[in-house]
């Protein structure tokens, strides 16, 4: 397979080789270290080998594109991404920070992460990152085409840390993953410690609606949103559900959540949707104006990504305003500097936190002050 | 206002399916109150002619004269309706009931009268599908009568019946004929049926114009032999009252004997 891989990459190698030789002259000791092949074990337990750090990575999993941008502090190594990832970038701040994302190809996968092998071949990737655990059908086309493939798994913080590390290692920046994970650990520990001191009775009942506009669905046990909410000291009312399940308004009324989080995916979804609903407007959350829509930073804050600790801080501030008072705006500014080498303007932070639609939201004033 | 009884007629009528003419230049006329039997071998277009008279199929050429509604008694080939006989007969009232209506007690009275007329009152509540062939044929006639039309068009009403039921059917048809209130047309394979229940007969000849006229003159041995391609003989035999009754008999298996 490695042999076939060579054939596949041959046209790309020649111009790059000259560049590499030049780079090697400049940093001889480092180049010597880099000469070692990179051997990784992906989340499906497969061995993935790169002779040198990948220069062109195709990321089929949606959050992976922005992770690669964050780990590489730029779009250089991103050779292709999921169409939905591109939509999120153009809709959010990442497209503004890196305008060139508009030109990165987003045709490498179709519905349900089915690889588009022709488009992938045209993208000339050194490495393709794909979801594991979703069956062989979406993997076989890649391996059959001789593409160097790395599989990752979705859902937990542990998986996220492992694939952030893998992604950073693959592009030769393992230290950036280490820093990200250290940050995750410290924020997790800080919030966890304070939440442990909160008696269960004081933990608000929380609902995360992963879909709302047409058919409603709640995030239950096993979802990343459940883990984040639990970490930040919320009691997920949908904990009895396995992962994301459809629910009706009556069920929500019976749960009577004190806080409702709306997913960051549905573009037209705002807290008004809850306030206007004859049933949902009667929940404790609606009556106390504690309905919030997930922010959109470098990526949507619902699934695990490079900015997850910011999500946790946001959640903790909103769920326990007396316990937590993270300077979220400051944190966001600092982390964007670190992740994307970008200096955010105040209005851009307003956009990430979706201030306009949270005009009446309780507890959002703290996020408003500049 | 009473509608003037109308005669039924085809004038120089022709029917073509694709490129094949089933019949051409067919003339036919039945006065009100008369009964016409249509005879002819298989494939000569008896049923097609009947359907043309009924208006099921538009004529390819020629003219048709008929009232709007005719009582139709189909062949016993169609899948029997699963309804009770009385419900089946009341369907004859369809045109009067209207698109969105339900049959009224008056409609049921008409249906019951028709059932009574054909003499199967005792079967009124039975499911139609469970009746014998003869009983079904009577039921279908009752339904045609219940329509209130003064025309009765029957498609081979006797062909699926045993001799006893054939007798009952012909008795009923003759009875209706003699009342002279209805115009009746039926097709049949048996010239004796025409003799028993019809005033006139129409012979659908091969490669020549159809012949028609009163049954006792038109159904000559020569005409019938030409019609069927089998030697036909006519006799007169005494009936139960000792009166002369004409019978027509095919000379089956005789012509082959000559060849031997």
């Amino acid at each position, binding site marked *: 397979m490695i042999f076939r891989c060579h054939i596949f990459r041959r046209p790309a190698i020649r111009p790059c080789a000259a560049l590499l030789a030049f780079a090697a002259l400049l940093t001889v000791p480092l180049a010597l270290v880099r000469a070692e092949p990179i051997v990784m074990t992906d989340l499906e337990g497969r061995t993935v080998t790169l002779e040198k750090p990948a220069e062109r990575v195709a990321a089929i999993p949606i959050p992976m594109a922005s992770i690669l941008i964050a780990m590489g502090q730029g779009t250089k190594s991103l050779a292709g991404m999921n169409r939905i990832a591109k939509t999120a970038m153009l809709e959010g701040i990442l497209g503004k920070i890196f305008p060139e994302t508009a030109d990165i190809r987003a045709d490498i996968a179709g519905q349900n992460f089915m690889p588009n092998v022709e488009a992938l071949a045209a993208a000339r990737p050194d490495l393709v990152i794909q979801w594991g655990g979703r069956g062989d059908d979406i993997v076989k086309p890649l391996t059959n085409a001789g593409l160097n493939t790395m599989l990752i798994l979705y859902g937990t913080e542990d998986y996220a840390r492992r694939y952030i590390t893998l992604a950073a290692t693959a592009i030769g920046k393992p230290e950036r993953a280490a820093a990200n994970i250290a940050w995750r650990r410290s924020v997790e520990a800080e919030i966890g410690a304070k939440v442990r001191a909160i008696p269960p009775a004081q933990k608000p009942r929380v609902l995360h609606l992963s879909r709302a506009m047409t058919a*409603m669905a709640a995030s239950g046990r096993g979802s990343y949103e459940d883990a984040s909410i639990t970490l930040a000291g919320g009691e997920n009312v949908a904990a009895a559900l396995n992962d994301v399940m459809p629910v009706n308004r009556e069920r929500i009324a019976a749960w009577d959540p004190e806080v409702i989080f709306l997913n960051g995916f549905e573009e037209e979804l705002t807290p008004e949707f809850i306030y206007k609903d004859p049933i949902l407007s009667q929940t404790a959350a609606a009556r106390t104006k504690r309905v919030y829509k997930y922010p959109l930073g470098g990526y949507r804050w619902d699934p695990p990504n490079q900015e997850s600790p910011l999500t946790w801080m946001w959640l903790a501030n909103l769920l326990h305003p007396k316990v937590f008072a993270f300077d979220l705006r400051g944190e966001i500014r600092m982390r964007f500097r670190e992740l994307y080498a970008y200096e955010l303007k105040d209005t851009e932070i307003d956009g990430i936190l979706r201030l306009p639609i949270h005009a009446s939201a309780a507890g959002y004033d703290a996020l408003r002050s500049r | 206002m009473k509608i003037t009884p109308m005669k039924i007629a085809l004038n120089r009528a022709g029917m073509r399916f694709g490129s094949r003419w089933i019949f051409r230049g067919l003339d036919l006329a039945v006065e009100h109150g008369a009964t016409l039997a249509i005879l002819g071998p298989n494939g000569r277009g008896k049923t097609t002619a009947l359907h043309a008279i009924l208006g099921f199929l538009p004529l390819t050429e020629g003219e048709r004269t008929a009232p709007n509604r005719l009582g139709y008694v189909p062949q016993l080939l169609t899948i029997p*309706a699963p309804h009770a006989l009385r419900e089946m007969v009341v369907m004859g009232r*369809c045109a009067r009931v209207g698109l969105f209506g339900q049959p009224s007690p008056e409609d049921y009275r008409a249906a019951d009268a028709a059932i009574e007329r054909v003499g199967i009152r005792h079967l009124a*509540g039975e499911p139609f599908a469970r009746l014998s062939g003869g009983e079904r044929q009577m039921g279908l006639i009752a339904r045609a009568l219940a329509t209130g039309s003064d025309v009765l068009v029957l498609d081979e009403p006797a062909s699926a019946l045993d001799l006893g039921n054939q007798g009952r059917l012909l008795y009923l048809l003759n009875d209706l004929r003699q009342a002279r209130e209805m115009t009746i047309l039926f097709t049949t394979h048996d010239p004796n049926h025409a003799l028993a229940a019809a005033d006139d007969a129409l012979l659908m000849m091969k490669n020549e114009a159809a012949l028609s006229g009163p049954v006792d003159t038109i159904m000559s041995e020569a005409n019938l032999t030409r019609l069927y391609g089998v030697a036909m003989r006519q006799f007169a035999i005494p009936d139960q009252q000792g009166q002369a009754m004409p019978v027509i008999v095919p000379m089956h298996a005789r012509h082959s004997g000559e060849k031997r």
Partner: protein
Amino acid sequence: MALADALVAAGSRQSRRVATTTLLVAFLVAASLVGLGVGQFPIAPSRVIAILGQAITDPAAPLAVDARILLLVRLPRLVLAILAGAGLAICGGALQCVFRNPLVAPQILGISPGAAFGGALAIFLGISGVGLLGLSFACGLGALVLVGWIARIDGRTETVTVLLGGLVVGSLFSALVSLIQFVADPNGSLPAIVYWLMGSFASATWEQAGLAAPGLVTGSSVLLALRFRLNILSLDENEARSLGAHPERERWLVFGLVAIVVASSVAVSGIIGWVGLIIPHISRLIVGPDQRVALPVTALIGASFLVVTDTIARTATTAEIPLGVLTAIVGAPIFALLLRRHFREREA
């Protein structure tokens, strides 16, 4: 004496029909009350009665949460389940008559796939409400016209060609639905389309009930009014014509009414299959083939069936089970049994 026997037999049949109908109405009322009384949000039976009483005597009073759930969630949902259940079952019964074929249902004729395509297209384009209803009606009717065009050869429509035409058109529209799913945004309209296609009353509101009710009620009532004519249309075409019916024309009237009912139901609840196929069978087993009795009974059973399955769909688990999935799980085995029975009878 024979006549007397027949009259007694008819009389007992009459009384049996009255008893059957009474029983079915009672069951529907009971199922509806149970459906109103149970749900994820606990409301005591006494409270249910109090809320309903207050809604009638003092409709302007402000509503408590349980009253809102009863009157704004469960009641419109119940109304929709009754209307759609009755309507879809009537459509199946009417189509089975017109085609003289007991295995026909709106789905088989391409109407449902057509309406589903219209609805999916509407969701994809961000159209809701009347627009969605109109689009699914137009596409349902369009599918039907297409089937009619395919099936009409030499000015005659054969049952077999209609069924085959329905198969072809149904497959075409199913493929178009897949195409829409393929191009739909997985974060936006796609999950909505997928869930909607599975069929559910979960998002039922009075607004939706108001949207679907006119079509459901009009289509169903006109079909019910046609029930004697449906008996006649179930006869051989020439027989029907000789009795004064206009089979060709009236068949299209039935098709149009079916399209109105199916599209109205599809617009608010997606595709709820099997109701139109199995309920008319069950009804014929109970009261026989005369549509004057069978069609109203079909309506009653269809309404009860959806009320019961919808109650299960929203109460069996914490999460909402898509109704279309439930009706298929219940409907498919029943249909298999009916199919075996049908062919065994034909053998006999």
